[in-house]
């Protein structure tokens, strides 16, 4: 296995929302000292309860890998990713505790000023909405150059040359001309290519892609994924954190997968074993809800019910309200994340005895 690029330990990112009813009973419930401290020091949190978007999440990202995070909307996957670059809107969001160790440095302990040196340089991001993620009144060339000049002290001409190079690399025809175009003059797929060019201009060690293909046509999706993987290969030790709810995308691109539900990691696995033999009932549900062309339409199996509201998540296993295999213990205690095989973790009472 490669070296660890990022080590995330016990990350807790909460959003604080107003709820006077729940607030009354809250103080008896807080057992987490870090959260207690926050409540003591921050006046803003008065009358507010924490919505635990990411609750005690630990995982590693290795050099050279493509790591996927899957889960339904509201499972905490995007918040996990934004926590790495500390782009959580505060208020209402706060990283309560945890460590994010990137190349030996805890990103949660450094100053905001220092954090800016990592963003766009060491860690870049691509977002879901290519249509709105670029500034509509700025030429795309200027937007790419801005990213370069923000981190490197080079003359403008050199930055422009680099921008042209990047646009060529991501497959935008006649880049010298397109440099002077505005985002609205590009299609969705082309804009996402511009985003990729911008994100990769400084050869980051980690690329965080938050549902980069969700808003695109299926044919374009494949092109964009292929482009990301191709560019990643040019820098051997760089890694991609791919956030998606599309298991098809995971199967095609990822080396390892993290399955999230209710703000917690439910399963970590290498890709092939996960698809061959999913362990967690949630993962099983996700996989069987993929349309299978061999089966008639009626057999499309959805996971019963909906993901509960973030403030109404069950106390024990987060999935117990929808799990078909839930038994008494699932409603009493929360299972631990257990390593059931090598590099295979699952958070489920069903597998506790196998160890």
């Amino acid at each position, binding site marked *: 296995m490669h070296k660890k690029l990022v080590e995330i330990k016990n990350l807790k990112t909460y959003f604080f929302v107003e709820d006077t009813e729940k607030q009354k009973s809250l103080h008896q419930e807080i057992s987490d000292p870090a959260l207690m401290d926050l409540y003591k020091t921050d006046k803003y949190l008065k009358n507010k309860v924490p919505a635990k978007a990411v609750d005690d999440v630990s995982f590693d990202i290795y050099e050279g890998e493509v790591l996927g995070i899957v889960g339904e909307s509201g499972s905490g996957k995007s918040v996990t990713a934004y926590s790495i670059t500390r782009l959580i809107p505060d208020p209402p969001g706060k990283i309560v505790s945890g460590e994010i160790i990137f190349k030996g440095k805890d990103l949660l302990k450094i100053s905001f000023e220092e954090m*800016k040196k990592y963003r766009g340089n060491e860690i870049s991001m691509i977002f879901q909405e290519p249509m709105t*993620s*670029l500034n509509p*009144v700025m030429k795309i060339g200027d937007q790419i150059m*801005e*990213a370069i000049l923000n981190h490197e002290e080079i003359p403008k001409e050199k930055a422009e040359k680099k921008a042209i190079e990047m646009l060529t690399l991501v497959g935008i025809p006649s880049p010298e001309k397109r440099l002077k175009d505005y985002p609205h003059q590009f299609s969705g797929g082309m804009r996402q290519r511009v985003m990729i060019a911008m994100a990769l201009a400084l050869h980051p060690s980690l690329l965080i892609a938050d549902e980069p293909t969700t808003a695109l046509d299926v044919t374009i999706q494949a092109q964009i994924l292929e482009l990301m993987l191709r560019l990643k290969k040019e820098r051997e030790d760089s890694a991609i954190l791919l956030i998606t709810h599309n298991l098809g995308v995971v199967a095609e691109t990822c080396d390892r997968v993290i399955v999230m539900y209710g703000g917690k990691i439910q399963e970590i696995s290498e890709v092939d074993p996960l698809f061959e033999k999913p362990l967690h009932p949630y993962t099983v549900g996700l996989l069987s809800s993929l349309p299978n062309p061999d089966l008639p339409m009626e057999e499309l199996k959805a996971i019963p019910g909906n993901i509960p509201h973030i403030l109404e998540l069950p106390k024990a296993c987060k999935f117990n309200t929808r799990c078909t295999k839930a038994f008494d213990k699932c409603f009493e205690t929360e299972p631990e994340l257990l390593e059931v095989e090598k590099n295979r973790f699952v958070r489920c009472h069903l597998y506790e005895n196998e160890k």
Partner: protein
Amino acid sequence: MTTYFIRRFLLIIPTFLGITLVTFLILQIVPGGPLEMELMKIRMGGSDGVSESGSTSGSTQNIPQSAIEELQKFYGFDKPIHERYILWLGNLLKLDLGKSYVYSEPVMDVITSRFPISIYFGLIGFILTYIVCIPLGVYKAVKNGSKFDFITSALVFAGYAIPGFAFGALMLVLFGGGSFWDVFPLGGFRSSDYETLSLSGKIWDQIHHTILPVASYMIGSFATLTILTKNSVIENLSQDYIRTAFSKGLTEKRVIFGHALRNSLIPISTGLGHAISLVLAGSILIEKVFNINGIGLLSYDSIIQRDYPVVMGILVISTLLLLVGNILSDILYAIVDPRIRFK
């Protein structure tokens, strides 16, 4: 896009004709025109002469019919109204706005002598408003919900609720040397001894006369522009491209001024073109309160005195400014927002 603007410019012609025609008709149909005023004056003069005889009820009998006809001819009322309009329009094409009844000077001269004063006050108020409101709006947006935001909002809205002329009157009562403080002059453009002052004295005198009127000009537009800027910046700060900008590692300052503000200026800049006509047209009530001899006061007096040529002259200029200002807004819009392309 050029054809669009050419079309817009050509559209000025029918709009202009419509506005002037309606005003011309209303103005001349309304009773109490200059003819009646002149006759009244003669009658009053006559009654003055015979006041001792106790005759208060003047009658037209005193004025010979030939004199009335002569007056009618002098004012051009011997011709039917449509003919008068066409005549006026014809003169306008020759850039001749006629002669003022009251000042007996060409209308053009009367107006141009007042213009600099209105432009002076209007422009200073206008520039100050933009210089203060945009940074204030941005700062309020960044500090949204803070004590500073709350207090400035309260002040700005209080200002919005007070009409400019009322605020001006209040300021004069407080600072005009009446019962309270004697800080500012009661009005006027400059002191009567302005010419005798030294250079620094002149500058100070000018500033001294400027502060209260300009504050009255600004107070109303302050709220609109500040809150517009604030809301616009807040809206833009929550956009996806702001997240992208932060993810590039830009500083907060750069994100706000380089990205959010540029987008926020789009709705603000469209107001600029329109504001130009407001600046030049002056404010009737504020000029009245401060006794400033600007366009506003001139148009007020001209209407009261039924000085038709001056009223029409001011109308021509303000209409043209408004129409051109609207087109200017569109051009500005197209400049600041590359997505806008008029067809």
